[in-house]
């Protein structure tokens, strides 16, 4: 295996979050009854004509600017001609020779923590096709054209990824970006974000690329990883056993965990691209592009850098917390409420909160525990009302009941004891009750210090301020 190098390029299709379709006024909302969101333009009726949705253009430009790409002042819509029942016009309107976005880059972090830059060759606007339905129709195939005409950007990477993990890291980064930019909802189950993977292998050190196979329409990060891994192993095995990889389109079957041939290059369509005469070339001037740039949000990489500088977080933590805009916003709301403890805020958001969300299968934006609620808890840690340990108990109660931290601390009497006199009294009681251990300690058995901490905590139901307790014990135990 080690003698082979894997080469991967991805074509990511991201559905743009416009309200209406790219060339018609029909709604794009997901999940409507079949063919209820397809107007005459989407159905390709005789005589109808496409009209470009300006919002789709703005979204594509946002993406291009976010990856540092060139925005074409002049781009052209072309027809990609092929017959398929879910393609009503017999051609898909796409961009071919002159795409709207060209030459950007996406930075990913590899497993060893090092960074890698993946080039984005181009991103172009196009319309989605409809769907063929098979379930519950017996031998028949149904056609649902609700999706036909939904705007997409196809983001084409350079063949610069060298492992399935790199491919997944790249895809995740693009996923993060499109959601930051609010141009795609990123819903992979509904197909809003999916990819085709071009995979080939070549002997390590070789310059020429091997023959590639294109795995179509993969709609989860896990499947991307598995499909690529399977395909790489298949190609290596094939070559090593004297066979040849053929250029073809393959499908990943998640049930069997394998890729299967769909059609070979010989059977491939000649798409007969030519400029769509129904649409004028798209002309964008500098003023327009700059107006889109001015409206860009803070992007994930910039935000992560700021988190490191502003909150003193590690690069890793900053990366985790900026993985989505919702998460980053949540973190910042918490951090602002506990200004002295940004690291504490990070630990809680990534730790307890993430675990609880995960357990309940919820998203950060679900509203289950608003940022100010979590902040209310952390404030009580910071001002020493409760210890970190008690805080976990309070958190659980908050998660279950939805009550505020203060209400729970009050109701359960969990307020930390910070009164030196009270702690001293508790220590004295414990010392009186355990003369033997005290004698041993004083004879040099230092380890028994922990025993006394435990006993005092037990006596105070865990409410003694740990730092104060430590200090007082150190003073009192030696006698």
């Amino acid at each position, binding site marked *: 295996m080690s003698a082979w190098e894997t080469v991967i390029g991805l074509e990511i299709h991201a559905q743009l979050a416009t309200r209406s379709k790219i060339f018609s006024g029909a709604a794009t909302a997901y999940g409507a009854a079949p063919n209820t969101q397809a107007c*005459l333009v989407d*159905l*390709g*009726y*005789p*005589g*109808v*004509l*496409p*009209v*470009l949705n300006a919002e789709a253009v703005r979204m594509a430009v946002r993406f291009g600017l976010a990856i540092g790409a060139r925005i074409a002042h002049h781009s052209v819509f072309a*027809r990609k*001609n092929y*017959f398929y*029942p879910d393609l*009503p*016009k*017999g*051609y898909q309107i796409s961009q071919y020779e002159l795409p709207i976005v060209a030459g950007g880059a996406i930075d990913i972090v590899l497993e060893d923590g090092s960074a890698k830059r993946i080039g984005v060759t181009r991103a172009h606007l196009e319309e989605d096709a409809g769907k063929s339905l098979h379930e519950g129709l017996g031998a028949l195939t149904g*056609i649902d054209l609700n999706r036909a005409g939904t705007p997409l950007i196809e983001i084409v990477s350079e063949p610069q990824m060298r492992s399935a993990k790199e491919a997944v890291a790249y895809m995740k980064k693009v996923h993060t970006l499109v959601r930051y930019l609010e141009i795609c909802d990123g819903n992979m189950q509904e197909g809003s974000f999916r990819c085709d993977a071009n995979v080939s292998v070549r002997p390590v050190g070789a310059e020429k690329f091997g023959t590639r196979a294109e795995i179509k329409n993969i709609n989860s990060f896990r499947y991307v990883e598995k499909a690529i891994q399977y395909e790489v192993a298949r190609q290596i095995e094939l070559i090593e056993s004297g066979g040849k990889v053929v250029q073809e389109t393959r499908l990943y079957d998640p049930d069997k965990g394998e890729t299967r041939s769909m059609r070979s290059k010989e059977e491939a369509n*000649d798409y*007969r*691209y*030519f400029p769509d*005469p*129904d*649409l*004028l070339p798209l002309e964008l001037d500098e003023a327009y592009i700059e107006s889109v740039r001015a409206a860009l949000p803070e992007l994930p990489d910039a935000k992560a850098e700021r988190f490191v500088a502003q909150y003193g977080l590690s690069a890793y933590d900053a990366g985790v917390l900026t993985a989505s805009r919702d998460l980053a916003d949540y973190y910042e709301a918490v951090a602002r409420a506990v200004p002295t403890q940004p690291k504490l805020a990070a630990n809680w958001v990534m730790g307890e909160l993430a675990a609880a969300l995960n357990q309940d299968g919820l998203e950060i934006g679900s509203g289950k525990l608003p940022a100010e609620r979590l902040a209310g808890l952390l404030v009580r840690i910071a001002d020493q009302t409760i210890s970190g340990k008690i805080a976990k108990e309070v958190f659980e109660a908050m998660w279950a009941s939805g009550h505020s931290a203060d209400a729970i601390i009050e109701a359960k009497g969990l307020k930390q004891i910070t009164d030196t006199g009270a702690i001293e009294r508790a220590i004295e009681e414990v010392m009186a009750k355990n003369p033997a251990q005290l004698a041993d300690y004083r004879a040099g058995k230092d380890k028994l210090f922990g025993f006394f901490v435990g006993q005092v905590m037990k006596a105070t139901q865990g409410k003694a301020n740990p730092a104060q307790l430590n200090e007082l014990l150190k003073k009192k135990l030696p006698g």
Partner: protein
Amino acid sequence: MIHRQTLTQLAADLRARKVGSVELVRAYLARIEASQPALNAFVSITAEQALAEAEAADRALAAGRGGALAGVPIGHKDLFCTAGVRTTCGSRMLENFISPYDATVVARLKAAGAVMLGKLNMDEFAMGSSNETSHFGPVRNPWNSTLVPGGSSGGSAAAVAARLVPAATATDTGGSIRQPAAFCGVTGIKPTYGRVSRYGMIAFASSLDQGGVIAASAEDAARMLREMAGFDPRDSTSVDVPVPDYLAGLDAPLAGLKIGLLKEFFDQGLDPAYERCVREALAVFTRLGANLREVSLPNIPLSVPVYYVVAPAECSSNLARYDGVRFGHRCLEARDLEDLYKRSRSEGFGAEVKRRIMTGTYVLSAGYYDAYYLKAQRVRRLIAGDFERAFGEVDLLMGPTTPTVAFALGAKTADPITMYLNDIYTISANLAGLPAMSVPCGFAAGLPAGLQIIGPHFAEQRLLNAAHRLQLETDWHLRIPGEYA
């Protein structure tokens, strides 16, 4: 006789309540019915709907309301979609297709009060120069029923020539308004590309198709076009330029007008008797004070080959939607998807349409695209450049509309190239997107000849002005074929 009136007179009489729309519609419907066996100009006759609309128009007119064409009967070429009335495009493929919506042109004329009497026959998908490719049988020339009326708007031209309607919509991709107008002795105008919305006009070649009018006179054409023209947000290629009042400048004097004679159009191939008609019309312009000079457009001879790459390429893609899945003809008992496609399309399309789909598919194929499609687009720009230079020197270009008068049915069906060459003078205006007209200019061997007038972009007013002035001096446009007089 009502039918000898121009649309302009009819509209005025309707408004003055000298005649009622119902009366007019009845009279024209009777003429249509009587003519059908001989001419076959109509694919569908919408008598009931027309009478209901006429009644509504009469009520509106009686109340002092109603648009500019209130109560005026017209016909639509059968590729303009009409809600609830079948739109066949002259094809078996759409024999039973009922559009759920109105084309913009249809909606605008309806809003102006015009009453549709029916849908006019045409070459299948507007592909043809003789109306012989229609699935519904050929239209015949009212001047001589053994002759073709021209195409593809043969139904529109024949219907106006025989006064079955005062005016009709038509479309022109490579001469489909002007050539049949010339063959039938009527006035036709193809506006600037983008002037009239293509929404709802079933596409043949999108970058060339343009809707227009066939009428009895330039004035009538202007009256129709005034209602049809204008920006349509549903057609991205329609142009947002204000529509002038085409009627306002019709009488403007022509003194000092610079007219260029298209040298290449008077070269070999032009019938001498036809040329005499054209020259006589040109002499009228000289008398009216215009200055004539010869102009050469060196790339014009390349128009036909360029056209027969670009138009089929676009048509091969535009007609891909007729796959038997959602509308149109579907073969019986398809074995599988491929069988459904192949047989539905083989059965639904006629020979000429198939020829063009295959040509277009070929020229767009990998490996041939550069040699054919790209090169054709380059030459197309050269031709447009020729016109641009010419219009730096002259105001209008003139020449014959066709090389000959109408030919016999069947005369050219065996050889597509001969048929294509019939459009040799008309195609270049489509390639350059320019407005162009054909105006009756006399008779050669007893058959109508057409003078073609081409202008710069959006110069429709200038074209109509010149044509109208010619028609004030001549009466060729008022001649009606004997049987229909």
